[in-house]
């Protein structure tokens, strides 16, 4: 008999010193709220979806005025329509994947479904960051080619900014804002999901290793 079988025999024949809960102790537990990672992924995902959708509404009117006067109002409008179609697709897949998470599935299936739900949201965020960068580049190229008009629209002359410096100052500050924004987002996601899913990812890999 090997050592584990010895432990097995003792495990079953001897009574372990385990706590004993009463009917009422257990009953009270039913009223408590879950704090599982699935719940957290759900809450954070919804927050992300709301955040990325509301960004469009948060743009100040002066921004819209400038884009209209620069003649790119149509570009913004069409990109918004496309954005909402893609957004609806993401919502659909997110909901579908979230519903497929069942604690009664086998461990591997359960882990796979959780990671799939998380991946949907990850792609949504990647898509948003990608679109943000792409649109910024396109808009800035247009601004650059029409820099004379931009100088007039932004009323920089009234603020005493000389025309020669204006284009470089404007584009550099735009670039800095974009890089900072993306870096902050990456850090945020790395923190939130890195910490939340570290253990699950580790265990999933461990389980996949058995299959090799």
């Amino acid at each position, binding site marked *: 008999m*090997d*050592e*584990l079988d*010895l*432990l*097995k025999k*003792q*495990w*079953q024949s*001897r*009574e*372990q*010193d*385990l*706590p*004993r*809960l*009463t*009917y009422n102790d*257990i*009953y009270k*537990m*039913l009223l*408590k*709220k*879950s*704090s*599982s*990672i*699935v719940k*957290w992924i759900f809450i954070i995902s919804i927050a992300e979806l709301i955040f990325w959708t509301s960004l469009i509404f948060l743009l100040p009117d002066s921004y819209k005025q400038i884009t209209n006067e620069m003649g790119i109002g149509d570009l913004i409008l069409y990109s918004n329509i496309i954005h909402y179609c893609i957004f609806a697709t993401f919502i659909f897949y997110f909901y579908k994947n979230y519903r497929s998470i*069942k*604690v*009664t*599935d*086998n*461990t*591997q*299936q*359960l*882990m796979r479904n*959780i990671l799939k739900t998380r991946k949907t949201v990850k792609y949504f965020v990647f898509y948003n960051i990608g679109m943000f960068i792409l649109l910024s580049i396109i808009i800035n190229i247009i601004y650059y080619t029409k820099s004379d008009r931009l100088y007039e629209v932004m009323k920089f002359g009234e603020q005493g900014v000389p025309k020669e410096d204006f284009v470089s100052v404007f584009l550099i500050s735009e670039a800095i804002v974009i890089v900072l924004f993306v870096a902050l987002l990456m850090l945020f996601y790395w923190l939130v999901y890195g910490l*939340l899913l570290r*253990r*699950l990812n*580790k*265990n999933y890999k*461990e*389980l996949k290793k*058995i*299959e090799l």
Partner: protein
Amino acid sequence: MIFVTKDPNSTLIQKPTTTKSLNKELEHSFVTQLEENQNIVHKICRLYTNNNDAHNDLFQEITIQLWRAFPKFRGDSKFSTWMYRVALNTAITLYRKSKRTINTQDFEGVSFKITAEAYDDTVEQQLKLMYSAVKDLNDIDKALVFLYLEDKNYKEISETLGITEVNARVKMNRIKEKLRTILNP
């Protein structure tokens, strides 16, 4: 002419079972069965946590997950069999280790109740060593060992974890080998 009058005391006229009373029945049946089988959950909590706070936390989370899944529990398997899967899934996958599990006192190995019988000291010592070696395994290996200790066959183990029976067997032999070298260096 016959008038049919409704007898107010007729047993045929039953009060419609309200959702509320149905819920009460469900709750009662669930709590009773969990109370009976709570040792399974406690054993998992012991293996996967290191102190009382974490133990209670995990027990609480497992209870919630069991209760949520309970309406779909058909009773075609035993309640305890069904519990293994949900409880282990919660411990391995869903449970977030809370911060307060750090810096608190650890359980001292396993404490089997010592009965009147005199136990061989070396056997006792070996068991403690064995138990702490099992506790040091990774989450997945621990689940395999736990199901093995609970006398589940390889078919059940493979179905619970979602791996093939052959792979479960191979992995179990490797774990046994590992534990053997820990005990007999």
